[in-house]
């Protein structure tokens, strides 16, 4: 009979297989390939040679130590902001929150450069203020401590967001009941709020730790000059000195990173066990505490931290961009816009980088949007074991450090694709595919939450009106999830635009991204051009974040990360 379908399912028969195949290509294939190469390296004894290399062990040591201290620093700063901004009546919450999350969105190598420009004997800013240390004194940030400090600054927003999400669901009546039982503010905090917010703190610590182990930008700028190598920078240098053994070596090194990350996540799992406090009753502990006279201590403290995290490094970056060369003090006489002119209009390399990054980011965001709308539809409507497995497969590439995914994709595409005989290695397409894989989860999350808020009857009404799948997709579903889809596009664009770790391994002549261009310019010593490019990137980030901020009112809760 014509027009009949097998079941009453609202999805066309091709939809779920399409999602599954996409996930197989983007998530399963690269990781399976990585595992295969790693196992092959085991089999032919290559692993023993790698593990016998002392540089591997020192890199592993530095990775763990910097990640641990970085996590502790991010925990301290992140918790302070989360508790004060969520639970107290401190003024200017919106502004503080926006500024505090900003470092997370700024590319790590830009953060590192800004801090280098801010401190040390040749800082143009310190020189302009005549407080620079004497020439010849060491740059304090080129050290394990420096790397850990910047990890802390970069990832504190992650802790903040994880903890804040937990604090927003705290039971207000629970706090009030404790108050009526006679507990003082401090006791309520210690006995009620701290235990209930522990899951958020643990989750934040785990995310921060995993991000630290995979970070490339910060140890590349701060570690390499001092010969401190972490695993990601070691992989990078192995690729620079390419030999026949490189693939096996980097597969093993990525395996070590992946194992450290998984260990971190397992410790989190362990710590969270038995702490599943379902919140009952009224939630929303907004302004549970009045600061009173303490506000005069805390408000300046928060702004001072933001000054050192953001304002000072950014001013140093601007100062660095305005002076003709590193080490020249900034005065009205030395100031010029020459560097901006150079990177925007003269240097072909930076222009190509702009074009590459913007088009890669746009292509990633738009391709992913198409896939995620279909995937979110299929996954929210199915709700069976298969769809849960697919959802977690989508999460894996995002939760693994970017460098692991980059290595995996190199391994997949190093040889030409069988049957098609096309080689993607060295082209811009390999970067695009790696981005699609890594940012799938980022793109999916807002769209899925929009689908969950959508009344299924709205689609059913369209079905009874006679609209087929694509018709109701374009007439009903897409317009209704448009705000979330817009947010997803901007978020992916923002992250892809500033990405360095993946492109640092995958770029070749002509396919450099903005992140790579900044790194290379710094490597070649043109600090004024590096600073100018970094300033432009930071401005771009701020503009996109403001765009999201304006969209926020029309979005489902939790889509814009820094808003409640």
């Amino acid at each position: 009979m014509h027009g009949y379908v097998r079941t009453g399912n609202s999805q066309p028969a091709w939809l779920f297989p399409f999602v599954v195949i996409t996930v197989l290509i983007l998530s399963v294939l690269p990781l399976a390939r990585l595992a295969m190469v790693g196992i092959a390296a085991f089999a032919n004894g290559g692993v023993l040679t790698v593990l016998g290399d002392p540089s591997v062990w020192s890199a592993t040591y530095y990775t763990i130590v910097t990640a641990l201290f970085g996590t502790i620093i991010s925990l301290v700063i992140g918790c302070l902001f989360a508790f004060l901004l969520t639970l107290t009546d401190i003024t200017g919450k919106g502004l503080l929150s926006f500024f505090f999350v900003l470092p997370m969105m700024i590319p790590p190598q830009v953060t590192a450069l800004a801090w280098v420009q801010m401190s040390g004997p040749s800082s143009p800013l310190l020189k302009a203020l005549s407080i620079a240390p004497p020439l010849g004194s060491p740059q304090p940030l080129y050290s394990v401590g420096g790397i850990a400090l910047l990890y802390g600054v970069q990832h504190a927003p992650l802790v903040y967001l994880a903890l804040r999400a937990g604090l927003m669901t705290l039971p207000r009546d629970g706090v009030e009941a404790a108050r009526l039982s006679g507990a003082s503010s401090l006791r309520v905090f210690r006995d009620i709020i701290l235990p209930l917010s522990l899951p958020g703190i643990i989750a934040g610590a785990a995310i921060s730790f995993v991000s630290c182990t995979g970070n490339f930008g910060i140890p590349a700028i701060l570690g390499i000059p001092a010969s401190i190598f972490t695993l990601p920078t070691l992989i990078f240098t192995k690729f620079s000195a390419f030999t026949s053994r490189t693939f096996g070596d980097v597969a093993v090194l990525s395996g070590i990173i992946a194992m450290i990350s998984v260990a971190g996540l397992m410790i989190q799992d362990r710590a969270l066990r038995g702490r599943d406090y379902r919140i009952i009753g009224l939630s929303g502990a907004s302004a549970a505490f009045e600061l009173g006279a303490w506000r005069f201590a805390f408000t300046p403290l928060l702004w001072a931290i933001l000054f050192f995290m953001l304002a000072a490094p950014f001013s140093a970056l601007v100062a660095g961009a305005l002076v003709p060369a590193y080490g020249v003090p900034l005065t009205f006489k030395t100031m010029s816009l020459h560097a901006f002119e150079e990177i925007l209009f003269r240097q072909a390399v930076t222009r190509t980088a702009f074009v590459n990054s913007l088009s890669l980011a746009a292509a990633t965001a738009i391709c992913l949007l198409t896939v995620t709308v279909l995937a979110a539809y299929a996954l929210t409507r199915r709700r069976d074991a298969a769809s849960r497995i697919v959802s977690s497969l989508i999460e894996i590439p995002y939760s693994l450090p970017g460098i692991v995914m980059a290595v995996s994709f190199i391994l997949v595409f190093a040889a030409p694709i069988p049957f098609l005989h096309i080689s993607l290695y060295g082209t811009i397409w390999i970067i695009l595919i790696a981005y699609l894989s890594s940012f799938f989860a980022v793109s999916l999350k807002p769209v899925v939450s929009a689908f969950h808020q959508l009344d299924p009857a709205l689609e059913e009404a369209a079905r009874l009106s006679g609209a087929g799948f694509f018709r109701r997709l374009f007439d009903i579903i897409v317009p209704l999830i448009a705000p979330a889809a817009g947010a997803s596009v901007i978020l992916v664009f923002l992250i892809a635009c500033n990405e360095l770790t993946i492109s640092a391994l995958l770029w070749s002549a002509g396919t450099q991204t903005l992140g790579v261009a900044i790194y290379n310019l710094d490597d070649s010593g043109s600090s004024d051009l590096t600073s100018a490019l970094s300033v432009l990137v930071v401005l771009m980030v701020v503009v996109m974040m403001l765009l999201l901020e304006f969209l926020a009112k029309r979005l489902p809760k939790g889509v814009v990360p820094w808003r409640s």
Partner: protein
Amino acid sequence: MAKLILNRLAKDFGTGRPAVSDFSLDVREGGFLALLGPSGCGKTTVLRMIAGFETPSDGSIHLGERVIADAAQALPPEKRNMAMVFQSYALWPHMSVADNVGYPLKVRGISGEAYRAKVGEALSSVRLADYAGRRPADLSGGQRQRVALARCLVTSPDVVLLDEPLANLDRHLKQEMEETFREFHQRSGATMIYVTHDQSEAMVLATDVAVMSEGRLLQVAPPAEIYARPEGRVVGGLIGRGAILTLPVMGSERHLEWDDLQDALHAANTDGADILVRPEDVTIGGEGAPATVEAVLFEGERYAVKLTLGNSQTLRGFSRVAVVPGERVRVVIRAGWRL
């Protein structure tokens, strides 16, 4: 228009107990069928199978000569030419009232003058012609309901399904909408299936009432018939506010008079037949059986009285004069129905 036939329909969600089982029903053409039952009895599942949102695990659904669904295959909802008023109204918030109503026409490729005329006609039939340009968010609950109804009207569907459409409205608005539904049914001549748990809605609106419980169909009959001659305890308890007595009456006559009941009331043993007694058939006073007043509710035009008979069974009746709890009275049961 065509006759809708449900043939031994069953649905099992795999929860251990089937949601619907062995459900057979013929809906007469142009009829207004109310599907009545307590919540969770499977009535919404039946409606969603008719619409095509669920596929039957067994049995089949026929519309006229065509099989529209059986266990192996189903016509998707978009090809069934049905319409539905959802409990949440399901108006599309990004479209104006006129666009919402006209969408089924747009999907069918109707445009221009014909489109405008049909939308205008549908809107004026629910008295919303002046609201064409508004967004659903700017309307009140009753107005949204009427937009949803106009959307059903616009394509002259074979079957109109209504899923507890009055559940979210206040009492005053309910009455007004009941009026609108009746008018709508008379004018359109469409076959309508109306799911509700409220027996008074079902009685007022429907030409036929189908009573469901625990996934099974218990009885289908016109409202007056089902009120007067319910089958079984469940239907008897669901329809109206009668009391069910268990009395040792003789014979097999189903309609019982005071003469048949009088002796049974005085008998000591209480096993026997289930007898449904409507409160309007109970007269307080005279030479009847002794009873004690348990509770009295003043309802304006009369008192609703809950009584306990000598054999400690509960009876409901009406009284024109005030009685007080604890008072000993005599009651006459003028009519009863053997279930």
